[in-house]
């Protein structure tokens, strides 16, 4: 190593340490928000519990009165637990950013040396805690109420969960971009957009169950392929790497589009002086 390389490496290390500290500061800020806002716990405790009760009981009813009941029961419960991976990661990131608009903290943040990427990583980091809480509640409720053990799906569920996690972040980035452009009036999308993606992704059923005209749309969604891979695990067909691969490629493509969209909306936000909506 030359003498010039040592200071450069040291500088890079210092930059990384500063960046890491900013990311942790944002994550800690959102931990305080959750700690002091009991109503925010609804998303990570009550909602997954209600979902599991609703779809678990529906599954039990179908298994008692329908044909191939046990499969429907498993599809419903595994579907709703996996859906909460998308839901929790999406809600954590989008409402994390919305929190700054609600508390009019955006201007304070924008005049610090923090980059937009550091901010998003900080919110994602604490979002992982909320995700663990939400999915944990769903998994425990499924096991406690219906003796459905998610861990029976095995380690092969990990790539499926990874894809769904990133899909949640991608949807959140689109929501953030829309809020930057249209203001807080668009914040209903933070919750609403998921209810469009949910039925189209075939989280409880193969997409052949959808109306024919909607199937091409469903096929285009990476979530559809991730849930299909999850169902294959349920019926002991092993991990369908083809489905996971399609889901992963689709997710990466959507992630690139989402990042480009947010960057464009942030640029417009600065150009049009939209900061005054929150100051």
């Amino acid at each position: 190593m030359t003498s010039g390389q040592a200071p450069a490496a040291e500088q890079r290390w210092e930059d990384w340490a500063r960046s890491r500290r900013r990311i942790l500061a944002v994550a800690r800020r959102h931990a305080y928000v959750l700690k002091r806002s009991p109503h925010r716990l609804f998303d990570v405790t009550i909602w997954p519990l209600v979902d599991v009760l609703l779809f678990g009981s529906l599954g039990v009813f179908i298994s008692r009165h329908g044909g191939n009941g046990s499969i429907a029961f498993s599809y419903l419960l595994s579907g709703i637990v996996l859906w909460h991976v998308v839901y929790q990661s999406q809600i954590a990131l989008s409402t994390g950013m919305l929190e700054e608009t609600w508390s009019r903290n955006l201007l304070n943040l924008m005049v610090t040396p923090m980059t937009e990427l550091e901010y998003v990583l900080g919110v994602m980091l604490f979002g992982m805690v909320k995700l663990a809480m939400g999915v944990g509640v769903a998994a425990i409720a499924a096991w406690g109420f219906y003796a459905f053990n998610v861990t029976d799906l095995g380690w092969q569920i990990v790539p499926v969960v990874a894809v769904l996690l990133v899909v949640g972040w991608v949807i959140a980035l689109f929501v953030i971009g829309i809020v930057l452009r249209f203001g807080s009036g668009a914040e209903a999308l933070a919750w609403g957009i998921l209810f469009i993606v949910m039925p189209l992704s075939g989280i409880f059923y193969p997409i052949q169950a959808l109306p024919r005209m909607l199937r091409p749309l469903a096929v285009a969604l990476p979530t559809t392929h991730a849930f299909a891979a999850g169902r294959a695990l349920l019926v002991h067909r092993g991990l369908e790497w083809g489905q996971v691969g399609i889901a992963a490629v689709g997710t990466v493509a959507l992630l690139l589009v989402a990042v480009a969209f947010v960057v464009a909306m942030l640029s417009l936000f600065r150009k049009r002086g939209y900061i005054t909506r929150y100051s």
Partner: protein
Amino acid sequence: MDTVVRAVGLVKRFRGAVAVGGVDLEVHTGEHVALLGPNGAGKTTTLFMLLGVVTPDAGVVELLGHRLPEGRTAALARVGFAAGYLPLAERMRVREFLRMYADLYGVVDATAAIDDALVRFGIEDLASSLGTELSSGQRTLVGIVKATLHRPRLLVLDEPTASLDPDVATRVRQGLLDLTRTDGATLLITSHDMAEVEKLCERVIFVSRGQVVADGSPSEVTASFGRSGLEDVFLHLAARQPPAADGVGADPTARR
């Protein structure tokens, strides 16, 4: 003398209406400068462009030697900003809020820096309070403490004492003077309180209809308008600026 802020030909239009129409501005190390003008004159838009929060349609901004927007992170690490109209982030205690910003600014010994800053502005008793428990004046004070935690080279304050009673405003002014004297920091403020400006600043820049119309010491500017004081100059310029003249009312940063 080093240049801390350099803006050349700053232009900003909102929906076609000119909010800032070609502002040139230089502020040097250690100066105490007030950017003055009636509502809608373009002060806050100019400040926001200097801080990289609003992108100018034309012109160049250099902050502490860093050209924006590329050098934004490096420049803002040495800039502090507070505004009298900004609330505290909710659901955080004052110390937690300050700790967050100490971390964002990379303050080495955050606890000591927070303690020092709280004492400097006489609000150490608020450290454990939640933001929602504070009066607007107390929130403003905490905002100023936040802006000074990292001992910035440039302190930008937008209407810093607007919601403070005279006693607290005096304490804030003294705290700012102590800080800038100790650190040699530069102060750039906007204010509608001309008495405060005369106590804090040795240079004033008047903006009207998005243009710099006067730049000099308070006495020079007063004399150039043939008026009796800064307040009189302010009223004179305000009378010349109808509320939505030249479409200035379309400026989203204009505060009414």
